[in-house]
């Protein structure tokens, strides 16, 4: 078939499909559209505004993810300080090191994620080009996937590594579990605990949230007052702990932390009247620019005997 013949047949075929002017019903139906169709109003404004907002939010999320998943100087074993000294030359751990405020989910981040999800939903539902629709759906799934991995309190757990307290005493009779601190009065003690990043994204350890009881005269009771870490080449002696610095943990990576505590004025190693226990350490970490607090449960509670009358 020649090109001319093909074009002629095609034109005739298309002409045969032309029904002529629109019937009256079409005119009537369309003329009623302004009366029967709600005006754009705020809904229309949102429909127009959400896609660009969603695109901006997705861009922020992507930049954040790419910035967070930077290749750290991973040596296969312990965590790597993000900044500061990496060896035993670092300053020793003292009270107040690594103490940071407890954090709550950021409203800004929640708003950003919500805007991104809603805007992408609008895009996915309304966009004409399939590839954009698929892209929007993929972005939604990506945000949900990332969101499912962060903001949970189980990103950090006590993992491999040494666990114990210093100074310690043998477990007194009458107690079935726990490691016991030998302390008289508000003495300092240290908890050696290995912490592992169990999430699928890297994170930075930021510090420890202030521990203890939120009651008046709280220094009567045990409390956490600092945190440090043990360099890889200096294992297992809490007294060798270094001042805390921000620590980068890749997925599956561990770090040996040393938590500094005060036993409280009522601590009495020689008196078996009762005991206060610390069963978790509230660590603050940052993941994809979001700060979270994870309560790392200790395999055995750290117990401090008291005299019961303080």
């Amino acid at each position, binding site marked *: 078939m020649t090109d001319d013949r093909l074009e002629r*047949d095609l*034109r005739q*075929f298309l002409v045969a*499909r*032309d*029904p002529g002017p*629109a019937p009256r019903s079409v005119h009537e139906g*369309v003329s009623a*559209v302004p009366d029967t*169709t709600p005006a754009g109003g705020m809904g229309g404004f949102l429909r127009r505004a959400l896609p660009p907002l969603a695109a901006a939010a997705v861009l922020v999320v992507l930049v954040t993810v790419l910035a967070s998943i930077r290749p750290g100087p991973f040596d296969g074993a312990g965590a790597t300080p993000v900044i500061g000294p990496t060896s035993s030359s670092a300053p020793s751990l003292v009270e107040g090191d690594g103490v940071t405020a407890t954090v709550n989910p950021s409203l800004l981040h929640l708003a950003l994620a919500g805007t991104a999800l809603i805007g992408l939903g609008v895009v996915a539902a309304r966009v004409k080009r399939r590839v954009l629709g698929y892209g929007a759906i993929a972005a939604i799934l990506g945000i949900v996937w990332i969101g499912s991995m962060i903001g949970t309190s189980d990103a950090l757990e006590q993992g491999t590594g040494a666990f114990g307290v210093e100074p310690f005493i043998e477990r007194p009779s009458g107690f079935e579990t726990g490691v016991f601190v030998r302390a008289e009065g508000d003495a300092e003690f240290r908890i050696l605990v290995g912490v592992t990043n169990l999430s699928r994204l890297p994170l930075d350890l930021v510090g420890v949230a202030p521990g203890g009881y939120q009651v008046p005269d709280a220094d009567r009771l045990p409390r956490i007052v600092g945190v440090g870490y043990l360099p890889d080449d200096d294992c297992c002696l809490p007294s060798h702990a270094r001042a805390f610095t921000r620590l980068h943990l890749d997925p599956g990576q561990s770090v040996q932390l040393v938590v500094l505590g005060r036993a409280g004025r009522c601590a009495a190693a020689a008196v078996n009247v009762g005991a206060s226990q610390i069963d978790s350490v509230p660590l603050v970490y940052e993941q994809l620019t979001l700060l979270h607090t994870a309560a790392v449960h200790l395999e055995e509670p750290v117990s401090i005997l008291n005299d019961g009358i303080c």
Partner: protein
Amino acid sequence: MLGVEGDRGTIWGSARPAPIEPIVMSRRDSFAAVMERQLDAAYRLAAVILGNAGEAEDAVHDAAVAAWRSRELLREEARFEAWFTRIVVNVCRDRLRARSRHRVVQLPADFAETARDHDRSDVLASLASRDSIGRGFAVLEPDEQIVLVLRFWRDLTVDAIAERTGIPSGTVKSRLNHALGRLRTALAIDEVTP
């Protein structure tokens, strides 16, 4: 012809849509007036793309609703024809994609009249040729069908098609070329198939 930039062919002949005067589209009466002037052209375009007059009525109504809802996006009211055509094309594309395998094919409106005026053999030959083109046309992708309609029924230039479909001119050219190639292949297969 129907809002065309070229003057090829006058087989179907119709009035060119009246030029759009600068009016305030957000007002109900103004919108209705502008829409009324484009309605016949839009309906015929939808019918040719969809191959079904009944479905074209629904498509035009859907397009009118979409146009009313997004009328504030039209910055230059003189471009209403191109803008509304694009909406119609998008609605038709969605309908083509959503179609099920089983479709209703209407006989051409001039069938009975043609049959009276010609020998039966001529009519059958004409219909056979048209059927052959129709079968080939039906296997094309919706986007390919649309560019063929805009080019060979509405006689638009490549740039005008690009404006009304929202794709680059180069893509329009390649899509036209590809569509004609596929149509030719389909016809060749049709000829050798008993």
